[in-house]
């Protein structure tokens, strides 16, 4: 899939037919690897999803029809985990896009030490999800040792909030947002810097104040990068797992990925896990298509 657009650019550059053929051959290994990489696992997943395949019941084999899907949907956790998934993805996207836009606007201003701040900005992105989840859970949100608890006690509270215990989904949302905020901010900052300075002058002449300038000039300019951020984040956030596992909250605030994991790990049902995986893939596509359309309609108008 990733090879396709580049293929077009290449064929535009290579003038002669011979060069095109050569280019095709030169690309073939990369395309093959890419295809195998994404196609084989997908094909296997589809295959397993229609198979009776439980590790604790090895004698029970053969085609399962749609029963894996049926039982996945009927799983007592399915509806709750579906809602959790949507809430986590949507909440994190809203937080990171809004926060990222504000942060990008701030970092676009000239101030002393801006270069270093920008460099530091990206660092949360490099922290492994398991590590950041551990740090947040035990050092920041812990009801006894946590930073937040300390702050609460400073203001006189005797019973600080147990974040992961009382607000598990919200807490995971905070951790994930912290990880993705820099990504959104940096993409949007780059976009902001490509905004023509004369647009600002022109809108100032036309009587647009700072808010109108933001609403009518900056925001439409950011529409496309915001769409990109949403798309990428949707795909990755649907797969949120480490934070939930480390948080130990899979039973209360698990998402579909966690449900697939527990089908495989606790129930050892490969067939049902594969079916769940496929449902998650379809969901990812539906959600991202919906979000992208929504953003496109509202910002570009």
């Amino acid at each position, binding site marked *: 899939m990733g090879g396709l657009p580049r293929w077009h650019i290449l064929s535009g550059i290579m003038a002669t037919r011979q060069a095109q053929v050569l280019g095709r051959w030169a690309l073939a290994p990369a395309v093959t690897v890419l295809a195998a990489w994404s196609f084989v696992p997908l094909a296997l997943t589809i295959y397993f999803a229609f198979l009776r395949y439980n590790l604790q019941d090895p004698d029970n084999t053969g085609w399962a029809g749609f029963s894996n899907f049926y039982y996945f949907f009927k799983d007592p956790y399915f509806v709750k985990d579906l809602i959790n998934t949507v809430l986590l993805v949507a909440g994190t996207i809203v937080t990171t896009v809004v926060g990222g836009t504000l942060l990008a606007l701030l970092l676009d201003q000239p101030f002393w030490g801006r270069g270093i701040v920008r460099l530091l900005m990206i660092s949360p992105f490099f922290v492994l999800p398991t590590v950041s989840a551990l740090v947040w859970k035990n050092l920041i949100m812990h009801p006894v040792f946590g930073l937040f608890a300390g702050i609460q006690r400073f203001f006189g509270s005797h019973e600080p909030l147990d974040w992961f215990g009382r607000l598990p989904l919200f807490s995971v949302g905070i951790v994930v947002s912290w990880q993705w905020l820099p990504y959104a901010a940096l993409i949007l900052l780059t976009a902001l810097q490509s905004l023509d300075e*004369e*647009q600002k*002058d*022109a*809108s*100032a002449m*036309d009587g647009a104040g700072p808010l109108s300038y933001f609403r*009518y000039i900056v925001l439409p*300019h950011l529409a496309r990068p915001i769409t990109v951020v949403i798309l990428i984040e949707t795909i990755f956030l649907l797969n949120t797992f480490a934070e939930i596992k480390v948080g130990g909250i899979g039973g209360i605030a698990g998402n579909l990925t966690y449900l697939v994991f527990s089908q495989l790990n606790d129930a050892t049902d490969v067939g049902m896990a594969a079916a769940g995986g496929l449902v998650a893939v379809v969901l990812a596509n539906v959600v991202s298509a919906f979000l992208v359309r929504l953003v496109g309609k509202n910002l570009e108008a």
Partner: protein
Amino acid sequence: MGSITLKNVRKAFGDTVIIPGLDLAIADGEFVVFVGPSGCGKSTLLRLIAGLEDVTSGTISIDGEDVTEAAPAKRGLSMVFQSYALYPHMSVYNNIAFPLKMAKMDKAAIDAKVQTAAATLNLTQYLQRRPGQLSGGQRQRVAIGRAIVRNPRAFLFDEPLSNLDAALRVGMRLEIGELHHKLGTTMVYVTHDQVEAMTLADKIVVLNAGVIEQVGSPLELYKSPANQFVAGFIGSPKMNFVTGAPAVNRNAATIGVRPEHIKISKDTGEWAGTVGVAEHLGSDTFLHVNAAALGTLTVRAEGEVSVSYGDRVFLTPDLNRIHRFDANGVVIR
């Protein structure tokens, strides 16, 4: 209404002084052109008038009202930018309507104004397009449309035609001249182009390093430049400057003669020289004549001249049209 007065306006970016102190009066309805070499502060001056830059000191007033501290939109001026600065994600209609929308005008009134402006500028059939789908000339017209719907007190243009090709430039130049006659609004126009300056201006302001060298009508500047800088800047091809004996004979440090004020002859004349490159334009011929100690002189002869490279010729300046300058470059009258 739209008279603009600059009093002792100074502009510095940090320690770099761009405009050291400048006075200028622009009358209502006047077409004023700023010319000067690149980097002399033309755009800066225009942006100061627009309010896009703050003055370091001095005052700017429009129609007698002090606007030195006023926000750009409050000055009642419109600006057309060199790169047009259209809003790329808005349709042509919304681009033109934007200043009216910002002024909170109601929809019907906006529509009427946009349609009128579009009709004036031949844009009616493009109203639903985005700027990216227009040609350079059409974009230019949208930028002008956006400027005229506000009924500004004055228009500010910063090299509006420099991104257009030669043919289109001539056309747009005429349109802007036409617009000025039709609206009668004050226009302040920055350009590099001799012809634009000479043809459009009621008044030309020649700037050099942030200082006004001379202000006057195009013909005044052409006929009686105040100094060597203006003499060399106005007129194309450039005025010839001669130092040495011919200048001393006329009690000057330097004398200047325009190429069109030199007669060329094969037999007699004041200065002798050999023909270098000859540029045949059809209507005129530009000859670059190597006149020994005097240096290379440019001569403009009407029509076709039958001389060729290496020919020996004689040049005679028109005695009534010799400009004399003292050692400081100031004209001697």
